[in-house]
């Protein structure tokens, strides 16, 4: 399929440059119709993947990226959907397999899928207060109450952030360049003991 077919049907869509497959940015309002058009008229019968992305240089902070696969034409198509006020329409009525992917995108980024049949968290527990894949969430994590409130009450324990040492990475933020991997924790060394 050529991306032009989709543009012709949905004039509000826009072709994005891509090296591996036709890529189209489609506004959230047209998403459901576009996925149905691709499924019913263009044989994109399998939703391979749906994930959230936090963009740095786009007008919408969050976006959803959908990869559709045609098992008969043996090709992929990629849809970029900018979230409108952190909201994207759910496509799980067209592809039931999108249900869990959308729950994950909500869990990790806080993107709300309007019309989703089961809008719960999936990987984190239900009362978890953050969305960990957002760029402003630290890699080590943030201290939160234990998932089981009754256990937390008795033990006074919490879920602690990951220790800074022990891995080859740490998110200190700010002091290293874009192209550089995150550096090791320098807050302690041979002379200066660990706090």
């Amino acid at each position: 399929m050529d991306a032009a077919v989709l543009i012709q049907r949905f004039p509000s869509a826009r072709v994005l440059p891509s090296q591996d497959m036709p890529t189209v940015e489609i506004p959230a309002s047209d998403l459901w119709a576009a996925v149905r058009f691709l499924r019913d008229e263009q044989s994109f019968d399998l939703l391979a993947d749906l994930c959230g992305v936090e963009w740095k240089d786009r007008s919408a902070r969050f976006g959803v990226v959908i990869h559709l696969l045609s098992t008969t034409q043996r090709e992929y198509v990629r849809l970029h959907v900018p979230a409108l006020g952190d909201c994207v329409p759910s496509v799980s009525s067209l592809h039931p397999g999108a249900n869990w992917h959308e729950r994950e995108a909500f869990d990790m980024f806080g993107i709300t899928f309007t019309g989703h049949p089961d809008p719960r968290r999936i990987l984190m527990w239900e009362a978890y207060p953050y969305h960990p894949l957002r760029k402003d969430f630290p890699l080590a994590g943030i201290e939160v109450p234990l998932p089981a409130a009754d256990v937390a009450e008795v033990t006074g324990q919490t879920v602690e952030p990951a220790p800074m040492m022990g891995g080859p990475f740490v998110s200190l933020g700010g002091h290293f360049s874009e192209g550089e991997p995150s550096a090791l924790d320098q807050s302690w060394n041979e002379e200066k003991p660990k706090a």
Partner: protein
Amino acid sequence: MKITKEISLGDVAARSEELRGENMILNMGPSHPATHGVLRLSLELDGDKVVKCDPVIGYLHRGDEKIAENMTYNQFVPYTDRLDYLAPLANNVAYAIAVEKLAGLKLPPRCEAIRVLCCEMARVSSHLLGIGVYAMDTGAWTVFMYTFNERERLYSLFEELTGARFTTSYTRIGGMTRDIPDGWLAKVSAFCDGVERTIDEVDKLLTRNGIFLERTEGIAPISKELALAYGLTGPNLRASGVPFDLRKDKPYSGYEQYEFDVPVGTKGDCFDRYLVRMEELRQSVRIIRQVIKVMPGGAWYAEDAKKIFLPPKEKVMTKMEELIQNFMLVTEGPQIPAGEVYFEAENPKGSLGFYIVSNGGGVPYRLRIRGPSFVSLSILPAIVPGNFLTDITAILGSLDFVMGECDR
């Protein structure tokens, strides 16, 4: 003694409300031998029949996608081992190909052939375990011992190839960690002879086994339409009658050179999923034999990718340019151009996909992992209700998932 009062069907019907009782909520897992990891199924039961099934996942969530955003491309390779930890070699290869696709890198034929060999050996390893535990879950303990024997031999081969039995981390962006050792291919060849005998034995033990047939035939059939709607991939999709295999339909790493058949099921029930995996084992052995036969010589890594693959150690020690190159690669990571890529590889459990967004440099901006097990489990609420509680072990075994990849 004579039964004086018989309850007629009419009585039962009249008293149906009274006899029904309440539905029971049963938690299966997160620590249960048949859930193959930390999966919890929240089941609503009407007697022995499942009315509702709600899988609860996330017990093994490590935040791999977050971790990936904070390290260089090569540093992430060991994390891919831990996705589908029953086939780490295949994960390594899928990840490396995804990043190389983003970098627009062409690999020499020897490297591609080694990778195909790795993928197929991983498939044999994963399917042997999958079938072994599937049989065990349905009551056939012996099969597990047969298949584990072969896996042990495979692990020894992996150890010789990669230095590790389990977490192999064998690939690097642009190549492998090392070339295959001398005489190793002959050992793989000998292993093929052995595993073919084992496959035949397992075939004799299971395929016409009355108990196994009773437990699997006609259980939880997944229609073609349902399988596609839920995005199933790999053996689970093919068992439902969709002849789609990425190795044939979107060939990567030179799969188009090898001859193999793609087994396809007809009914999509638990037994079909078993049959498809059995035949895939044979086809994998067939591919392995072909790779050994044609194993090309030459470089086993992309020699011209100076900004991506580490230079040979002896040159680092003696030459200035290579020393600087090595230093830059280790500190800044392989330099991958800006762009986005989505690559799926035909892994033992299904299509393992990597969606990578790069802003240039050595660290991915976003790395999304599409785990086939995550997708395979998402179909449970649709296929489990209506089955008996005892069928769940067979259904879970037939879907062949692994939680490391589901929870990431």
